[in-house]
Structure formats: structure tokens, C-alpha cells
């Protein structure tokens, strides 16, 4: 009995394979002839056309203008949090808030992982003309901060090579001047915020206008390190308490 049923099942499988082949061939012919119905790939990239229309199929962004930021290679935790922050209205930009408003945490993580895993070469973006003095001020702020105004060095959180730290801290090199300066500005105007305590809002408010120009110009013009990947988790000790890094408001 056993062998018989096994034989039947084998035969069934063979027939099934033939049938599938015939169907596939027919489908293929049909498509070649007129194709009224598009064939849509079942891929995440296809599903997220709403994202890639502006940020690029691989999250390359628009480096020439800096308007649509690059997403490729940014830490996944950071990217997922940005989507969440647009949902919560902590980050304000109508089209992004509209696009992400109904996404689930699971789907946002999947989308974040997709862009985090993309390896796209960095392309140059336009640089502002600034004085050597401004560049020097920028370098000082990035590498050492300004203890007299309680401004920590960018490096102290964003990594020794400024390429970010897994999983939550983004890199700062390879970003356009316009993007960097507008982000620091938006922390001051409260159109970009994070879970409290919002350490970046504190820092942005301690920077002067000319400091923002200096930091952004120096970062945007810095030669890129050979390895642009974010540093390993736990390799920095942030000097400020940051809600996004798990600190609670009012904690020690």
C-alpha cells in the first residue's frame, strides 16, 4: 500500500511539474504577445516605490542638492527610528509624515534594514566657499568640541572616523553641506526632534549660526575614509544623555 501511494504521489508530482511547465510557457507566450497586465516582482524594492522615487532605488539620495538624503549604509536602528519619528510628528515634513503614517513597526524595520544594507559609492556634493578660519573652527568643533560652551566633539558620539556607530548613530561624513546645516537648523526650529532627552537639540542650540556653517562645511569637505561602515556597537561613550540611546528623562 505504502509503495503504491508513494508511486501515485510521484506520478502526481511529475504531472504537476508538466502542468506547471505548460502553464508557465503559456504565460510567457501571452506576455510576449501583448502584455496588458504588468508582471510585478514580489520584492521589497518593488513594494517601496514610494520611498525609492525620491531616495533612489538603493537609497543613494540626491547628493547634488542634498534635498533627499542618502539612506544607503546608514545604521538600521537609526533609519527605523527616523520613520517612527515622522509618524510621531517629532520630525516634521508633510510628505514623509503622510507616507509613513500607516506603516507597522515591523515593516519600518524591514525597510530600514533594506537601505542599511545597500552599498553605494559616495558621490561629491557642492561645497560652500568658506574662509580657512571657518574651516579651522569646524575642525575644532568636530574633533574637540567647545568645552567653554559645553559643546561636545561630534567625534565623541559619531565615531572616531565620523562614520557612525551601530545600531543607532548615523555617520556625518559623506553628507552634503546643505543637508548637514539644515538638520542642525531644524533641531533649533523644532522641526526635527528625538525621544527625550534630546541631546542633539541641546547641542544645536549651543551652536551659533556661524558654528553650524563651520561644522557643516568642514564635515562636507572632509576626505572620506576608506571604510565608510559604522563602528561596532558600544564603542563610544556619549558625553550627554540621549533618549535615542536608551537614556530616560530625569535619569542619572
Amino acid at each position, binding site marked *: 500500500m505504502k509503495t503504491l501511494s508513494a508511486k501515485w504521489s510521484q506520478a502526481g508530482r511529475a504531472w504537476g511539474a508538466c502542468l506547471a511547465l505548460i502553464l508557465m510557457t503559456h504565460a510567457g507566450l501571452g506576455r510576449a504577445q501583448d502584455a*496588458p*497586465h*504588468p508582471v*510585478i516582482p514580489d520584492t*521589497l524594492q*518593488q*513594494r*517601496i*516605490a*514610494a*520611498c*525609492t*522615487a*525620491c531616495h533612489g532605488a538603493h537609497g543613494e539620495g540626491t547628493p547634488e542638492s542634498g534635498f533627499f538624503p542618502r539612506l544607503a549604509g546608514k545604521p538600521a536602528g537609526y533609519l527605523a527610528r527616523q520613520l517612527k519619528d515622522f*509618524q*510621531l*510628528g*517629532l520630525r516634521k515634513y*508633510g*510628505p514623509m*509624515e*503622510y*507616507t509613513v*503614517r*500607516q*506603516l*507597522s513597526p*515591523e*515593516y519600518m524595520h*524591514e525597510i530600514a534594514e533594506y537601505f542599511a544594507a545597500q552599498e553605494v559609492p559616495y558621490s561629491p556634493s557642492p561645497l560652500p566657499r568658506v574662509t580657512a578660519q571657518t574651516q579651522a573652527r569646524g575642525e575644532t568643533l568636530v574633533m574637540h568640541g567647545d568645552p567653554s560652551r559645553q559643546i561636545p566633539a561630534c567625534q565623541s558620539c559619531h565615531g572616531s572616523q565620523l562614520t557612525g556607530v551601530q545600531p543607532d548613530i548615523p555617520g556625518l561624513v559623506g553628507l552634503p553641506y546643505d543637508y548637514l546645516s539644515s538638520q542642525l537648523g531644524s533641531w533649533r526650529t523644532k522641526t526635527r526632534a528625538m525621544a527625550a532627552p534630546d541631546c542633539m537639540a541641546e547641542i544645536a542650540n549651543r551652536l551659533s549660526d556661524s558654528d553650524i556653517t563651520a561644522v557643516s562645511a568642514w564635515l562636507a569637505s572632509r576626505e572620506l575614509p576608506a571604510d565608510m561602515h559604522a563602528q561596532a556597537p558600544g564603542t563610544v561613550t556619549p558625553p550627554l544623555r540621549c533618549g535615542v540611546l536608551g537614556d530616560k528623562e530625569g535619569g542619572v
Partner: protein
Amino acid sequence: MKRLAIIVVVVLLLAGGWWWFRRDAQPPVSPSTSKADAVSLKDPALVAKGEYLTTVGDCASCHTAQGGERYAGGRVLPTPFGNIPSPNITPDHATGLGDWSFEDFWQALHSGKGRHGEFLYPVFSYTSYTKVSRDDALAMFTYLQSLAPVHAPAQQPTLEFPYSVRSGLKAWRALYFHEGEYQRDASKPDAWNRGAYLVQGLGHCNECHAPRDSLGGQEGKASLAGGQIPAQNWYAPDLSMQANGGLAGWSEQDIVDLLKTGQSARGTAFGPMADVVAQSTQHLHDDDLRAIATYLQSLPPRPATKPEESLLDTHAIMAQGAKVYEQRCADCHGKDGNGVAGVYPPLNGNSSVNEPTAINAMRVVLLGGFAPVTQGNPRPYSMPPFAQQLSDADVAAVVTYIRRSWTNSASVVMERDVSKYRHTPID
């Protein structure tokens, strides 16, 4: 003598006006003297029933601010008369419903009056909720009272005069509000009655899916016949499934699919309806969804609109639209406009493409977006926004093209219409 008569008439009118418009002030009922007993207000079965019903009513959608605590209020609802923030309905004593009795809650839901008898603004859709049964209201109240209290003080509405005068609502109510629970129609099956109860009452579908007059009222307007949502700038389509209806050609299963998963063979939910599906209808029991479909099937046929003959020569705009369609749309929606089953919605015969204002088609082209995430569709496909890539003229052309191709024969869209919605703030 004549002057005296005039003065007397004016005084009488003022007094009459005061008498008619005065607040129907009354003291609230304290929870301790309430007829709803404290034991049943803790009954887990009643809490569960209430949770389901508040989901059907989508209460959280208005009573939760963006990024705020659920049911703690603070979402600012824009209306043509001003902005009205929703109140906190968690049981916080100082700022929520903590001191409310069931009688107070019933008075709000059923009669549209606050705890002290003040008239509530009809942005709180008591015009629909008045149909909710007392038993269901008790379950909802029980559920809301079981929530963790959140301290969230109410914000004040920013209404223009004369809308800022609450007592003026008395006149509005006389014109537009008919207090009364749903009355079942014994000649109709149970499923139909259940569907009618949900659609007309808690579901408050008419609040968007019917036209409003300049005072925001819906008196004398055809039920569920479609309407532009004031201040939000979307068009909620006609829901009749019969001849010339917005859902003509839809099956019962299509309705159930759309409400449960956010998409159906005939269309996909987007804009405010995507929120409704994600927050509310996807959680409804299947028999309730089928009951809703049963009721919608009974809506009457609509008068035929004759295909609009444009005075303009539409050849040029149609040719331009066809070009844009071929480049930007056909890969997903198909040359035949029939979409891809389970992935991209058809545009051919789609009520949101053919609705009278063309707002939906214009805004979807400009904004793109994801179908709602639901249990049935956890990783939805999406549409790219074309606001950055297409000029007003191109959007007008492609929207005109999809509105007048295949079986569609809706009106032409002008460039100036597009520029109006390009800058519409996002809800």
C-alpha cells in the same frame, strides 16, 4: 407710540432669543448616584465588548494626537469654522472622564450635550452616534473607564465668531440633528439591520460619505451619496453598489476585502480611508463586515450622469496625458487601466478616479503612498509621489487621461485645479 411698539418687539425678540438659545443647563449625574452599577462597570466581558465597539467607532482616531497617548485627545480637527481639538476620554479625574457617570456619557453620545448640558460641536459626530443603543453605549463607557488615566488638559477650540458661541448650536441642531436610537426595520433581515446600525451609527460613514451644506449640515442630502470632506480636501465616494453608484460592480466580497485588508479587486483604501481601515475596520468581525456589505447593497441606484462633453478640445490634453501615463503609470496599473490583482488597484471603473471633484486622483498622483498595513496585507505595495517629478500641466493631463479612458468618462482636469491641491496641507 410707534417707537414704543418697536422697542417692545425688540425686547420680546431678545428675550425670546435668550430663552430659546440659553444653555439647557443641568447638573451632571455623579458616578455614585448613577443607575449603571459599579459591579457591571468592571465586568471583563463588558469591557471587551466595549473595546470592540470603540474600535468600530474608530474613537481613537480623533481622540489621539499624533504621537500622543491613545484616547488622551489633543488631535486638532480642522473644520471650515475653525479648529477643534478633541478632548481626553481616558478616566483621568482632572482632565478626562474620571468624574463622569454613564448618564453623562450617554447624554454626550446620544444627545450631543456635555456634562453640564452644554451643546457639543457636531465635529463630534453625535448626528450618527445618537443611533447607538444604550447597551452598546454602556459597554463603550465601561471600556473607556477601564483605561489607564492620562493627565492631558483640554485645549480650547479656535473658532471664528459666531461659531464660537456654543448656544448658537441650538439653531444648528434644530435644522440638522435628529436624536434617537436606531429603529430596526422588521421587514429586513437581521444582517441588513446590523449593517444599517453599524453604518448609520457607530461607523459614522455618512459624516464623510455624504455632502454637506455651507453650515456643515447634511439635512436632505442623499445618504452615503459621496461628498467632499470639508477642510481635509479629500472626496469620500458614493457607496451605492447599484446602477451608477460609486461601488457599482463591487461584490459583497470586494467590500469585505477592502474593509478587512485595505485593498480589493476594485480599489485600494488611501488618504483618510486608509486610516479608517488600519485603525478600525480591519478589526471588525467577518459577520459585521458582511452585514455592512449587505446594507450597502440595498442603497438605491443613483441617477445617471451623462458623460460630460467638454467645450474644450480635449485631444491635446488627452495625448499629453497618454504620454505621461505610458511613462509613469502603465508599468503598474496596466495599459488597460485594470491594475494587477492583489497588488495595484484598477483605475478603470474606480470610484475614486471618477468622483466628481477629481481631488482624489490629483492628490494620489501628487502624494503617492502606501496601502494601509493590515493583518491581511502586512507589507503593502506603494505608489511613488509625483509631486516632484510632474508639472501641474502633466498632472492635469494624466488625471484627465485616466478619467476619460477605458470605461471612464469623468470631467477634464485643469492645470489650475492641480496647483490648488499641490499645496494642500497634509491632514
